[in-house]
Every structure is written in C-alpha cells, then in structure tokens.
C-alpha cells in the first residue's frame, strides 16, 4: 500500500514535469524540428559582420505606397544575439535617426534610439518586440537575429517549395512579449534557407505571410534573399524589403556599435 502510494506520487511528479517542461514532451517531431533549427543556425554561422542597404516599400490596402531608405550594420556575437545598427535616410524628416540594438535570445534586448533634431539618445523599452518597425508590417521581432534558444520546434512534414523540397517546421516563441503563438517556416533541405514563414497572432489566427525571394550566396557560404515580402492577411497591407549592396567582413567591431557611434552615423 505504501509502495503504491509512493509510485503514484512519482508518477504524478513525472506527469507534472511533462506538462511544465516542453523538453519532457519532446517526441520525434520535436527532435527533428530542433535538428533542422540547429542546421539552419550552423549554416549561417561565422559571417562576422555585415552591412547592407534596404528599400522598404509600405503598401496599404488601396495600393498606396510609402518608401523608406534604410542602412543596416550587423555584428555577429558568439553565444548571444547579434548587435545591429539601423540608419534611416528616408523619409527625409527622419534622416539621421538611428537605432542601436543588442539582442539577447531570451532576455530583454538593449535598444537605443538617436533623435538627430534633439541630439538625444533615448534608451527605449524592449517590450515593443511585437510592435511595428517604422510603421511597416514587420514587427521588431521579425527582423531580429535567429537564435536556437528563442523557440521550441516541431517538424510538421515535407513540402515542395518551388523546385526544392522544404521542411515545414513550427516555431513557438519562448521569449517574452512575442506577438505570435506560432510561426510556421518552410526551410529547404539543401541549404537550410527559410523560404516562407506564416505568423499566427495571439488568437492563433493567421496574421501574416513572409516570402523570401531570390536567394544569393555571399562569401561562398551565407545565403541572403534579395527581397522579403510580408503580407498582412488581416489588414490587406504589405511591406516589401529590397536588399542591395550586401557586404560581409567590412571590419566592423564592437566599437561601431555603441552610443557614441549612434550619435555620429551618417
């Protein structure tokens, strides 16, 4: 009798653990999802530093366009999220505005905004992960670096993506303040590039679809898409990002990512 009670307790502890910890629930689909995510990260590791220019085109339901010119500098940080510096050239009223972020996989990101008219560097709250970036259909979290610890994974099956075969993987954000319940990604089995992502809002309904168009390889290793196309299914709005002048290993270091550089970027 006593023995039975003890085993019952043990069983309930195991059950409780299983409910609390997603690791305990890990089955073959979860394992395979994680393996794909690890490959995805591994294939894109070691790029060091990069810079690129981006034209962001915002379209509303009636097709009206609004354009932004943006430059982005990135620094890869080992065992942490990347550092990023975003410089706005257009619209002209925000020219010189710059955004500095140190992302952390699970903790809060450190973010500073420089307002050139006031010459003021403002530390801003990192709770805005789900908020729109520059009035676009991209949220801050959509543009932050991919880190394995940020999600739990579930492999959903194989599916064609163009001429390639893709793994369909469900990512569930583990970091705080995400606007999504899940993101379903299509990752090709050749180079582990993301071709498509579907974002599901807090009510688990489909919110947005992001499509990556025209991948190019840099430095014989790193793949970057020339175009990102984000469609919001709930508002009919869309945002297109056209990337150009991708450069890797331009010699950026920690010194190019601090509050002082934020104040003098052009």
């Amino acid at each position, binding site marked *: 009798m006593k023995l039975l009670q003890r085993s019952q307790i043990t069983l309930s502890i195991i059950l409780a653990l299983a409910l609390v910890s997603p690791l305990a629930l890990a089955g073959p689909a979860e394992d395979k999802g994680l393996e794909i995510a690890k490959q995805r990260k591994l294939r894109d590791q070691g790029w060091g530093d990069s810079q690129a220019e981006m034209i962001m085109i*915002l379209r*509303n339901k009636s097709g009206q366009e*609004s*354009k932004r010119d943006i430059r982005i500098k990135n620094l890869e940080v080992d065992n942490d999220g990347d550092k990023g510096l975003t410089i706005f050239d*257009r*619209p*002209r*009223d*925000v*020219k010189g505005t710059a955004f500095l972020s140190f992302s952390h996989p699970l903790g*809060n990101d*450190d973010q500073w905004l420089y307002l050139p008219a*006031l*010459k*003021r560097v403002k*530390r*801003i*709250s*990192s*709770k*805005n992960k*789900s*908020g*729109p970036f*520059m*009035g*676009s259909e991209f949220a801050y979290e959509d543009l932050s670096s991919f880190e394995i610890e940020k999600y739990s994974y579930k492999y959903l099956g194989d599916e064609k993506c163009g001429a390639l075969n893709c793994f369909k993987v469900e990512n569930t954000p583990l970091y*705080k*303040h995400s*606007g999504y319940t899940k993101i379903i990604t299509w990752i090709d089995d050749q180079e582990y590039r993301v071709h498509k992502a579907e974002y599901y809002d807090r009510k688990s309904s489909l919110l947005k679809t992001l499509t990556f168009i025209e991948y190019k390889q840099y430095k014989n290793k790193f793949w970057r898409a020339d175009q990102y196309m984000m469609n919001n299914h709930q508002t009919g709005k869309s945002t297109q990002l056209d990337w150009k002048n991708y450069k890797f290993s331009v010699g950026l270091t920690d*010194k190019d990512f*601090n*509050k*002082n550089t934020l104040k*003098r970027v*052009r």
Partner: protein
Amino acid sequence: MDFWVKQIRQGHRLYPLVALMVLSPFSQALEVNGKVGVSALLFQHAPLYDKQHRQQWSALAELEFYHSWNDDQDSILFKPYARVDQHDSERSHFDIRELMWLHVGEDWELRTGIGKVFWGVNEANHLVDIINQDDQVDDISGDPKLGQPMVNLSLIRDWGTVDLFVLPGFRERTFPGEEGRLRGPLAVDTDHAEYESSAENKHVDFALRWSHTFDDYDMGLYYFRGTNRDPRLMVKQTSSGEISLIPYYDQIDQFGLDFQATLEAWLWKLEALHRKDEFDSFAAVSGGFEYTFVGIMESATDLGIIMEYSWDERADPALNQFQNDVMFGARFAFNDAQSTEILAGLVQDLDYSELRSFQIEASRRLGEDWKLSLELRLFSDHELNPISDDDHLQLTLEKYF
C-alpha cells in the same frame, strides 16, 4: 637587386596613400539637405500689452551641408537656421545651429566648432541639460537650442565615455521683443545683458562628463563651471528714466546626474543637480517614470503613461518653474506609415494649486517629404505666471528636401 625591389614596393605603397590624401576630400560630393516651413502662432486671447498681436506668422529654413573625407574619419557639418517672423523682430533671427568638424580616432572623437549636446532623460523638465542655450523665441518648449562654440574630446573606454568640453564664448538666451507674445509687461532688453564675469560673453566655460551603460541602467555624471544659462531678470532704470528688464548672467559651479533604468515596459528616470551660483547654493531633482502599453486595444498604437516630479531647493517658481511640480503625461505613438505621434502633458504646481499648464505636441508626416506639427499650450490664470493670457496653438508645415 633586393634594394631595387624594396624601392618599387615602397613606391606602390606610397602612391595610393598620397592619391587618397589628395583626392579624398573631393571624392565624396557635398551632401545637401534641409527643410523650409511656415508656422502660424495663434493666440486664444487678445493681447494684454500694446504692440502685441493675436496672430504671428513666420517662415523658417534650416539647411544642412555635410562633407566627409578620410574614409569618414573626418567630416564637416554646417547647419544654418533662420526664422522670419511677421511681427516680432526678436523672433526673426539667424543662427548657426552647427558648424562642426568631427574627427574620429580609434577610441576617441574630437569635435571642434559649433554644435549641440543634449544631456538628460526627462520629458518635462530638462534639468541637467546645460551646454546649449535655449532659443526661446523659436519655441518655449526648451527643445530649440542655439549653437554653442566648443571643443569636445570624447574618450571611449570600457568603463565609460569621458567627455571634455572647452566652451569658448557664451550665447545669450533669446527673448520675445516688443511685438512678441509669451512675455510679461516688459520685453527683455537683450542688447544690454550684464555679467558677473568681466569677460562677459567671452568667458571660457568648461565641462567634464562621464557616462556609461550597466546592463539595463544608463547613467551620466558631470561637472560644469562657467556662465549660467538661466539669467536672472533685473528691472533697471535707464538714464533717461525708462524702465527696462535686463538679463544678468552669473558664474556657476554645477554637478549633474542623469540616470535611467529600462526595465521591460518601465523607464525609471532621475535627474539631479547641485549648483553654486552668485546668490545661492542649492540642489534640484526631477524624476519619474514612463510605462508603455504596447499595441493598445489590439491596434499598432503604443501608449506611454508618464509621471515626473520636480523639486528645487530654492522653492521659488520665479527662479525655477518646476520648484515643486508634478507632470502627468501620455504619449501616443501610432506606429503608422505617417509616424503620427501625440504627446500630452499636464504640469501641476504643488505649492500653488491654481498654477498649472497643459500642453499637446503632435506631428504627422504628409506624403513623403512634408510634416505637419501642432503645439497647443494652455496656462491657468495666476499672478505668478506672466504668460497666463498667452494660451496658444502653433501649427507648422515643413517641407524636407
């Protein structure tokens, strides 16, 4: 043979270097940007004093010339600014907001010329901000500043940034003229400012600041010695018997501190100073929080709730408007394509319950290159507030190019 090869090599090395030094200042074209605008200052009440008006229209222009060379290690920025006011000759003014040569070293930066520097974290009371003088005729918000001549060396170290400032030359605060509103019964006579220092406006001021970020905490500490940016206004009788209001600038020693803790949706802010001037030695504090609700009511709009309290040891609202005041504010960032923003704030004096002011600042981009701004300021009727009757709305339309 060896010698010959070496010479050639050296020549090769030298040639691009010389070419770079000679050509680089011209390799990048001069970048020109700017804005022009019109602004209407509309007052709710008829003026209290002769010569003042109910409406003041003005035109403004700000240009920006930028040139860099030496692989962007050196740059020059020139930013002239002008406003022409329909009535007020003091508000019609020209200023060099910036004329700055910046040289960037490995872990240091040197700025030489005329520029603007902002220190602080608060919204309502910019207590510790001291390098630049207010361009008060432009806008009473305290945001527009006059260009300050300076040599600024920044040393960027692991343990923080040290900024050394030598500030040769002082800028007097601008005040509305006879035909301008937002003043008391006497217009300030800016042509006869007086100084404690015999060097007058040529006194060389000095500042030293250390600032650093520790995880979620950003902080700065500074020492400033030089001419007080806040003048005392003295009533004087001229030889001809006329009464005039003269600004008097004393010398001060000031320690300042600014601090912000950024903890998820909370921003906790604190500014404090200790100032020793000709008349007093006192402390002042201003601090509070901003809490942001991201995406209110399932929209893209963020709402920030702000509360800031200010205190000044001198307890005299004539010397510091924020002597014992609380500010409640709300910031709406619509996060739309037009970058629409609204910041509203109520400042309530806790010593004089009838003394308060309300302010709205809003802006929105129109099309690609236009911006419309609105500023509304309402003041309670109170004998301590000389501009009680100057409730106004300012609308500004600017075109960027």
